[in-house]
């Protein structure tokens, strides 16, 4: 076998190999059509080389005629796939030029099969053979077809298209690609001019168009291989970054997970497994996960997951897990849902953060705050003992007197049934009254679970005024109330909020002990705060006011201006209001005295937002 046959065959084989390789790549990445386009170009280039080899060894005119006619099919395929490749892969080249090339090339193909011989020849008269590189090669001799000019024009358009695309890519800044694709194309287009020269008998060389196409295919292939190489680098970088992420996640106590919803399979990092107390080989599904969630928090977690699955919103939930050994951990879980093409939730990915320590600190802080609040309430009861005795002794007195009056009536003999009925009903109602006072006192002194309930703030004000009515009377303080109607409710613990108000009112009374009897007026106002997302309560006295430099100090623990005070009241009040997401501050009035204000956010039920259920979840 001569070297000519060997070289042409190797060229074809190389093209076919590339074609096969990229076809395989395309099969795995169907969404990237450039691999398929490249594959088509390479097959076409291989076919062109094969045709050329056949033509070199052709001995008869008939054989040559049919070969020169059929070689236009791979040429058409290659031109079309190349143009498409430039458009799709480089995003360059003018669309109208692309369509002109498509049209012209297709017209050439059609005419090629309409003409008796081909678009190149009207007739092939003979086969000219000459020795080239030590081998006899054949070239045709005959009359060239003037329509062959169309083929030349299409080649010319292709050149313009390529140069234009190369310039566009160059301008975009991607110079390497511009040079590679543009250069290979220009190179190919120039070399292609040997075809007419051979046909016209100007030069004696065999057709080697296959090689010029191979150059173009090689340039395309080089570009694509860059992509593949980059992908390989990305995979490696991804691995490194995943390792880094794992390292970061592990040291930050984060467990990462993915839940395949259709198969109900959960993948989770080892750290995550340890967090939930799963061993490393155990297969996990949603039910296994659910079984670890603390029974009291299950509904909450389920609701959060369902909400995410339905609305696609970010999943977020703070919950406890109960490990098999009875240990409890706090987890902050976050994630998001991915949907499939049909809009069904396909998987959920996320991370779980171990927040046990933070939570314990929070709970401890809440516990201490509530201890403090309780202590302060107990102290207040001492201060209010007059009021309490009064509240209790009044109904007890009425009961005793009513009962003894009845005894006397019996002893007197004249029993008036109507009067007796009235006495009994009075006794009952007073008894209930006394029981209510005791219930309130017990509530006040209780050290129970802090409640979170919707409260009308005006009711809190009225309850407090009932509670300390006698103290106000005995201190000769009169109270003006301006309670706004139709206020939205707030969320909070009724006892703690009463405590804040009692403290503020008692302080206000103490501030006015040096005032004349007619000056001892206290005003309690409720209303909507500026911006209307909170309710504001203010307690105004007509005492001596607060020194400007002590305006903040008064809220510090153990700061007091009273002879008998412990200096805890206001600091406890502030911590209670802060825990209720509100603010407590003081101002001096323009004329005399001071005003204490506090705000409380409007209850979620009145606003429609998500409640912070874990707030104040400590022990009172």
């Amino acid at each position, binding site marked *: 076998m001569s070297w000519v046959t060997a070289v042409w065959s190797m060229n074809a084989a190389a093209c076919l190999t590339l074609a096969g390789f990229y076809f395989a790549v395309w099969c795995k990445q169907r969404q990237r059509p450039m691999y398929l386009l490249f594959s088509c170009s390479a097959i076409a280039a291989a076919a062109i080389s094969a045709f050329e080899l056949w033509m070199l060894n052709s001995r008869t005119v008939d054989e040559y005629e049919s070969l020169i006619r059929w070689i236009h099919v791979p040429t058409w395929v290659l031109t079309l796939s190349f143009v498409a490749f430039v458009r799709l892969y480089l995003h360059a080249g003018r669309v109208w030029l692309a369509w002109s090339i498509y049209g012209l090339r297709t017209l050439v193909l059609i005419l090629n099969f309409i003409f008796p011989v081909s678009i190149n020849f009207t007739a092939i008269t003979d086969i000219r053979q000459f020795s080239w590189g030590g081998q006899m090669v054949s070239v045709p001799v005959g009359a060239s077809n003037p329509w062959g000019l169309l083929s030349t024009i299409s080649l010319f358009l292709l050149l313009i298209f390529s140069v234009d695309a190369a310039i566009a890519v160059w301008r975009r800044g991607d110079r390497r690609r511009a040079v590679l694709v543009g250069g290979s194309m220009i190179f190919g287009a120039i070399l292609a001019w040997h075809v007419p020269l051979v046909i016209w008998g100007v030069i004696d060389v065999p057709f080697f168009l296959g090689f010029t196409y191979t150059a173009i295919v090689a340039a395309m292939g080089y570009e694509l291989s860059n992509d593949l190489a980059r992908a390989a680098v990305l995979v490696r970088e991804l691995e490194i970054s995943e390792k880094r992420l794992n390292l970061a996640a592990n040291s930050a106590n984060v467990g990462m997970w993915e839940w395949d919803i259709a198969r109900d399979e959960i993948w989770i990092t080892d750290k995550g497994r340890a967090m939930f107390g799963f061993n490393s080989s155990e297969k996990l599904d949603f039910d296994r996960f659910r079984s670890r969630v603390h029974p009291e928090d299950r509904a909450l977690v389920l609701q959060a997951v369902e909400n995410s699955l339905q609305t696609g919103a970010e999943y977020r939930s703070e919950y406890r897990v109960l490990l098999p050994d009875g240990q409890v951990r706090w987890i902050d879980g976050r994630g998001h849902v991915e949907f499939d093409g049909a809009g069904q939730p396909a998987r959920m990915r996320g991370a779980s953060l171990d927040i046990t320590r933070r939570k314990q600190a929070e709970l401890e802080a809440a516990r201490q705050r509530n201890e403090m609040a309780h202590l302060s309430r107990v102290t207040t009861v001492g201060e209010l003992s*007059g009021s309490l005795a*009064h509240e209790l*002794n*009044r109904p*007890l*007195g*009425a009961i005793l*007197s009513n009962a003894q009056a009845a005894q006397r009536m019996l002893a007197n003999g004249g029993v008036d049934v109507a009067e007796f009925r009235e006495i009994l009903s009075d006794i009952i109602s007073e008894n209930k*009254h006394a029981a209510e006072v005791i219930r309130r006192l017990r509530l006040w002194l209780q050290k129970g679970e802090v409640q979170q309930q919707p409260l009308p703030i005006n009711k809190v004000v009225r309850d407090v005024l009932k509670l300390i009515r006698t103290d106000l009377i005995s201190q000769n303080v009169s109270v003006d109330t301006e309670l706004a109607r139709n206020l939205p409710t707030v969320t909070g613990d009724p006892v703690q909020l009463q405590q804040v108000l009692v403290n503020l009112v008692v302080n206000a009374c103490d501030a006015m002990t040096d005032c004349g009897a007619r000056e001892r007026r206290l005003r309690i106002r409720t209303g909507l705060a500026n911006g209307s997302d909170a309710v504001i309560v203010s307690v105004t006295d007509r005492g001596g006011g607060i020194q400007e430099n002590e305006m903040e100090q008064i809220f510090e623990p153990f700061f007091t201006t009273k002879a008998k005070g412990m200096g805890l009241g206001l600091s406890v009040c502030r911590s209670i209001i802060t825990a209720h997401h509100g603010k407590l501050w003081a101002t001096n009035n323009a004329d005399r005295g001071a005003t204490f204000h506090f705000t409380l956010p409007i209850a979620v039920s009145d606003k429609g937002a998500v409640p912070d259920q874990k707030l104040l979840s400590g022990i009172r």
Partner: protein
Amino acid sequence: MTNPLDPMVFVVDDYAPGRKSISRLLHAAGFVVAAFASAQEFLAQYDPAACGCLVLDLAMPDVSGLELQSILADKGSFLPIVFLTAHGDVSTSVQAMKHGAVDFLTKPVNDEDLLSAVRVAIEKDRVLRREQTELFEIRARLATLTPREREVLEYVVAGRLNKQIASDLGTVEQTVKVHRAHVMQKMKVQSVAELVRLTQRCGIGESVQ
């Protein structure tokens, strides 16, 4: 109902069930009772001539029990007061007693305690009123004496003999005797001892020593 001769018990308490039960008890014990919800209400209807006593709640809004006590004192009323309170401290009770309160009772109050306090108060009122009447009578008798007779009276209750009085006044013993007889007759007394007792109640006698 307001016969000034029958003793009345006035009850003033802002706490309606308390007011009602106390009134009931007093009524069952045979007293005539008038109840009021506030000091102002009571003052608006109070007739100083009415006899009896006042059962008064200490802690009331606007005008407290102690304030009503001082208002009544300013008006010259000596209506005896029994204070009732659901919670009283020592200083308040001392203040109330200093100003003449009959008793200071804490709710819940036992019926016997309340009734005996009320009885004591009514008795005190009766005594006070009788004394008041007697005082008026003595003052009326004193008013009938001539200036000379008044002078002689003061010497007599000071324990001077007729002779001494005559020399002090620069007159004769016989004249003093006549004046003295007139004094005894006008003051409606039989003995000097009796005269001394009457005049002492009016504050006469201490000035001449």
